[in-house]
């Protein structure tokens, strides 16, 4: 996957204002630092449960959200930290959630696997592989019926593409021409199983034809390529022309989750993909096109690290939910009969 050939200005540099590009890089850095911070907290025993890191996949999350506003929706996955931050969530409330605190996005009830920021249009991560696919279609149905003009970006993994929910969701989105963009983050593995062993086709996007929608496979570590494809699909969706399937080929350099023993892939493979890190690549693009200097990038990285550190500090000292409130929020209107 070569860099953009010199002389050609990449789509992103042409399409976005410098502030927007800098903000995109900032978000990618923030996601990286966020996850490194979360991982460290986990290893220090400060966070429990499990978590799925998207380190190496930041271009996909941020690129796909470039042309979305707060009214546009996303549905996310178990590997959803990047999506959440890309859609505008704050570090503090995210860490508070990871620490199980009352001040977290889910008041400590959801944790990493259910991280959401509804105000910013993130309808939530999902612990069920493929669970978000039909929900995204429903969100797009609301937009169409209520005439809000909103689009929904549905993130899902390569593994999820073998769930029946994928098939049913894409088919309905297509027949009803709904404003939804299916963004497959193909990081080559569903847990331990490589796509070649789980999936009958080479590229997930090859399946778009079965739903009569455009499908494209692209270098998911190339921010500009992702943004370009998704922007096009968003425009198509807003114009009423229906859904698209975009496959971002990428890689998670960490294990599947905290309990991965890394028995299914080689160190060489991981090293290879570590070199394809989307963040330096994005930084290089912005520097080489004069959007920012290397010094700016360093400062930005340092600022992100600071933001993470203070987010962790704030979360640690935030209040826990009260045990007496354990059964709150099961229903919208609380009633004795339901306890």
């Amino acid at each position, binding site marked *: 996957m070569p860099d953009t050939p010199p002389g050609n200005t990449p789509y992103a540099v042409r399409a976005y204002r410098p502030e927007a590009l800098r903000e995109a890089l900032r978000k990618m850095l923030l996601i990286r630092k966020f996850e490194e911070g979360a991982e460290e907290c986990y290893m220090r025993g400060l966070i429990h449960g499990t978590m799925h890191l998207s380190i190496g996949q930041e271009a996909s999350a941020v690129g796909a959200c470039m042309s979305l506003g707060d009214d546009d929706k996303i*549905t996310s996955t178990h590997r959803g930290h990047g999506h959440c931050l890309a859609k505008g969530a704050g570090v503090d409330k995210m860490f508070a959630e990871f620490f199980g605190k009352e001040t977290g996005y889910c008041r400590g009830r959801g944790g990493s696997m259910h991280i959401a920021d509804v105000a910013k249009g993130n309808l939530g991560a999902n612990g069920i592989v493929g669970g978000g696919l039909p*929900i995204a279609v429903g969100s797009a*149905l609301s937009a169409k019926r209520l005439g809000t003009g909103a689009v929904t970006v549905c993130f899902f993994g390569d593994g999820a593409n073998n769930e029946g929910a994928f098939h049913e969701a894409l088919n309905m989105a297509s027949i009803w021409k709904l404003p939804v963009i299916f963004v497959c983050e193909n990081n080559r593995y569903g847990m331990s199983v490589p796509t070649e062993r789980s999936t009958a086709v080479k590229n997930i996007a090859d399946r778009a034809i079965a739903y009569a929608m455009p499908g494209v496979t692209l270098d998911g570590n190339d921010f500009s390529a992702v943004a370009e494809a998704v922007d096009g699909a968003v425009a198509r969706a807003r114009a009423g022309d229906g859904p698209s399937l975009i496959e971002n080929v990428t890689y998670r350099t960490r294990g599947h989750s905290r309990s991965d023993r890394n028995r299914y892939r080689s160190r060489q493979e991981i090293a290879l993909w570590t070199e394809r890190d989307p963040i330096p690549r994005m930084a290089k693009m912005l520097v080489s096109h004069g959007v920012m200097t290397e010094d700016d990038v360093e400062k930005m990285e340092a600022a992100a690290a600071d933001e993470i550190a203070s987010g962790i500090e704030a979360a640690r000292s935030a209040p826990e939910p009260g045990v007496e409130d354990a059964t*709150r929020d099961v229903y919208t209107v609380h009633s004795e009969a339901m306890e």
Partner: protein
Amino acid sequence: MNAESSVRGEVHELSYAESIRDAMDIALGSDERVVLMGEDIGVYGGAFQVTGSLVHKYGEDRVMDTPISELGGAGVAVGAALTGLRPIFEFQFSDFSTLAMEQIVNQAAKLRYMLGGAVSVPLVMRLPSGSGTGAAAQHSQSLEAWYGHVPGLKVAQPSTPRDAKGLLLAALEDPDPVLIFEHKLLYKMKGPVPSGYYTTPIGKAAVRREGTDLTIAANSIMALKAEEAAKTLADEGIDAEVIDLRTVRPIDRETVLASVRKTGRLLCVYEGVKTLGVGAEVSAMVAESDAFDFLDGPIVRLGGAECPIPYNPKLEEAVVPQVPAIIRAARDLANGAI
């Protein structure tokens, strides 16, 4: 007991199916956000002709035929409910909800809680249920107990045309997911239904007949069979109180306990498989309450037999409680023969 919201309209004779259609018509007519979704609910009018001709009045955008995709369809309804619509989702048979449990149980029921109260999922699902139609094991189940086990859901089971409408309108007012199990054998049954808007509260049982000798707590069509049994029992001098549970989640604890405190005897009648069916909960709820001290005999359950529903009509009849069996069980209980 029948704490319906104020009813202004006149009362007409409608079938259970017509009454449900009336509720949907009112909802579609008064709230732009309401959409119906399901298989063959458009021109076909629904497998049981419940949606009827609503598609002609409201169009295909409001009365949406889905592909045969129960999981996806339910998930679309969840996503739509989450983002501003008020879907009423019809399963063709409640048995097919087995395909959609992921979305119902993991998503619809839990989203609000998992997100710390940040969202509501105002979703109504309608599930034609029960045996008696000769459709055999995969089209005849009574699965309400499963859903009654799931916090985040509400589960109703109307047994009269009047309640069918009132509970559906109440479900639509409810900000949380409500599953309504409709009994297929009741669709053609007629009864008085007030016209216009009213709601029947979710979580309130109805005392269909007052009595002093024993309490029969039943759900869905079994409430009607219990009423019928009670008439014969009355002729024998046994005065049964008949409670129609109407909702499985939440169960109306107070109404059942008050009755048992009075009668001292409890018979639970339900069509679902006996083991772990609705009657198990009613029994256990009483046995752990103060009403236990009022019990003059064991708590008897008449539930569905421990087998799938057979095709042969005699067998099919034999595997769910029928009026004579209810009479026998009630008589034995009242006479202390159990």
